[in-house]
């Protein structure tokens, strides 16, 4: 059985599993990291959004064999650690606006929001409606109104 080593939330992990198992299932079913959620398995609902080396991506559509030993995976559980705090500013903004309803998509929404703010800044502007329109994470409870507010509010503290 092939072995795969990479970094998850600041810790090196090694798993024994076939190369082509998608990283989402390695995180959830093998490592027991349940923050990234399954919603489609084909990279369209974005409920599993995590970061790889600081960029948003969807582990449902990445083979574990394609993850390098030096790759740093961050799930919602590890997001506060990236700012060395109990909560990331985006999570605080989420709490302030009481965004979550059922909460199922929210880890992915928050991970996407953080990356989208960074992406906008790298392009030389603050995150705005046009950037938020590009976020593909679905919320079946329909919390989009508060997400829109929380992203703008969280960005100001990032």
């Amino acid at each position, binding site marked *: 059985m092939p072995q795969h080593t990479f970094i998850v939330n600041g810790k090196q992990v090694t798993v024994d599993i076939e190369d082509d198992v998608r990283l989402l299932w390695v995180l959830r079913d093998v490592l027991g990291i349940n923050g990234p959620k399954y919603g489609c398995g084909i990279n369209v609902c974005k409920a599993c959004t995590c970061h790889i080396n600081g960029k948003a991506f969807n582990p449902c559509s990445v083979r574990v064999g394609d993850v390098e030993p030096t790759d740093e995976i961050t799930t919602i559980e590890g997001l506060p650690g990236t700012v060395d705090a109990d909560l990331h500013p985006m999570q605080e903004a989420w709490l302030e606006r009481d965004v*979550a309803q059922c909460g199922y998509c929210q880890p992915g929404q928050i991970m996407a929001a953080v990356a989208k703010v960074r992406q906008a800044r790298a392009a030389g502007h603050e995150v705005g409606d046009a950037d938020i329109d590009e976020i593909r994470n679905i919320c079946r409870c329909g919390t989009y109104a508060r997400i829109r507010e929380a992203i703008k509010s969280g960005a100001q503290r990032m």
Partner: protein
Amino acid sequence: MEQRRSPRSGLSRPGNSHRPDMGRRRFLGYLVAAPTLAAAAQLGQSLTSPREAGAAIPSPPEPSEVYDLNDLLTLAATPTSNLIAVVLNKDGTASFDMPRAESGQGITTMAAMLIAEELELPLDKIDVTLADARPELVFNQFTAGSNTTISMYNPIRVAAAIARQQLLRAAAIQLDETVTRLTPHLGFIEAPGGRKLSYGDLAELAASQETKEVETELKPRSQFKIIGTPRNRIDALDAVTGRKKFAMDLDVPDALPTMICRPPTIKGTVGSVANVDAVREMPGVTDVATIATGVAVRAKTFGQCIDAANALEVSWNPGTVDGESDETVLDRIKKAEIPLAVPKLGPLTGVVEGEFTFHFRNNAALEPNTAVADVRPDSAEIWAPLQSPILCQQQVAEQLGLPVSAVTVHVEQAGGAFGRRMFNDVVLEATEASRKMGKPVKLMWHRTDECRQGRMHPMCTSRIRASYAGGNVLTFEQRHTSVATDYTQGFGEIITALAGKVPPLGQGNELGFSVPVFELTVNVPYNFGVVTQLLNETYTYDTFPTSSVRNLVNPDVRTAQELIVDQLAAKMGKDPYEFRRAFVDDERVRAVLDKAAEVGEWGRAMEPNTAQAITVHKEYKGATATLVEIDCRPETVNRKIRNAVTGPRVTRVVMAVDTGLPINPRGLEAQMQGGIMDGIAQTLTSSLHLKDGTLLEGSWDDYFYTRHWNAPFETKVVVMPPTTGEPGGAGEFGVPSSMAAVACAYARATGTVPTSFPINHATLSFTPKPTVPPLPPSPTNGLKFAY
């Protein structure tokens, strides 16, 4: 002003024997023998408030106005209800095991607020969990019809008030004081001179040695400090940190991932499987078993389940609708339509008519159907998000030939429900798979299963004919014709048990399930003279897998009505808002209409191809009005987004909502915001296409629920101050007027009244995924899209 009084509003209820002139109302509850203080109340004590109407030509009360669905659900609770208990713990916290499903609608937070109010305990010291199936509750552990707050408002408060009363008595003994000199405050009983005892100190001292009935009074509304104030959800921190656990996150020993290879057409069945042994040898796979709905595979990871399900070579038997497509279903519906009855009324009478089609819509939540089942020879244990857990327990027991007492059903937090989790099919699949494999399973539906074999809102048509003369609307007829809705799981039992006894119907069970629900929920909220609304259904209830989708029939029924109302206003030369204002039959509806118009700046100048619309709705003992602004300019409609539909954009929504007594305005606002997104989806983008027995949609990239790029830039919900003093429903309440307002705005912006919903249904804007193998393989190029 005419008063329409519910026939039951003057009747006394168990535990509510007060008369209005006798001062504060006293409630009966219980002290329960337990190691620490436990106070309880029976469910089923809520009251019906009278409704008002007036103006124009009064329409006689319709069934939904004198006896709506919530009255029926509440009544169902009364004769069979049992105790719900608030327990005080030695650490000073209180616990409440709630016999309802939390699926995002905020009822655990609502319950904690009610307890905090009466018990004078901080919100963060109250732990609300979801109760396992409690068969003794019979009909009283059923989450549907936006009824939870309505039916639990008094019982939860009564239990908490009895606990507070008992704490005061225990403290009085300890402090050698009289109860009247003591004050409960933030988890302490305080006495003059600064002496105080914590609730934790009193938890055992206040415990009762015997279970006995006691009386209590509830805090008057003027003293509310928590009820009616905006509060955040009690599970918000868990949600944003990823700690909130759903069924698929449970770590039940040896319950390995399990999925099902399903048939290519709706309700097809397994003929034979050619390669079971080969698939069992695939990486990670432990078991393969044929069950009633397909072939179940159990593996180390869900990813390996997907691969195994796709590798199975199955010959399938036909399903229930292999010859059916959108066109054949619509044709059959049209043949089943009941004719409109009112004849032409003469040369001075104008007529407005319309016929509207509403296509199939999927009701899956984002968390797919999931159930953990551990079936043993003489027992079974189930974990799943369930709206009707008692029925689930009975069904599992029946399937396994076990007594109900041998089946334990744990209710898990749901990642959305919308009606889907009234049906226990995933549990029955997990039970069968666990039994046949002889091992625990964690069974999850793939998203594609949800789209193609899940439940859907039935396709339907609504025909309306309205006549007017001399500034009044004389008649308003609506004929709603639908594919049959399946009410047999959970919902059906209550309806069939009570439909024959409900006063305005009184015709026994022959009316079936759907007609009572229709008559108990629909209304025309305007004084339009002679109003008739009839439902006719076609197909049997189990031909198509159907269900409600965040409301029953009202999103469609009211959308059809409001489109006709706008046309009536135009024909009669009136502004749409002023017209509604003149004809609404309820002061609360008029008040929310005025508020939405005011805050939404009704009538402000709009660019060409953009427009406002405003609509109302009354249901769930409340009223809403929604003002929508839509952008149908070509540059907006034709904007391109990869794997998405764009089309018209709702740019701004203002909704005013009156639920009688909002318990948590922030939670109510959230529910309305969610309802608005459903309304947008159902009018503009969301539908299923049926072709030769297969639903073409297969995931979120072709089933177009509202996405960020479809969402309004501005969404404002105005929660009206309390009006009736009794709470109404919220979960489904936001959808009907939103859907109707989007449709009316589209009509006004484009000059074309839409007649088929969603408006993009006629264009298939995607390539359907294959049906064999059943599941789309997971891509491998995810890193290319990193940002």
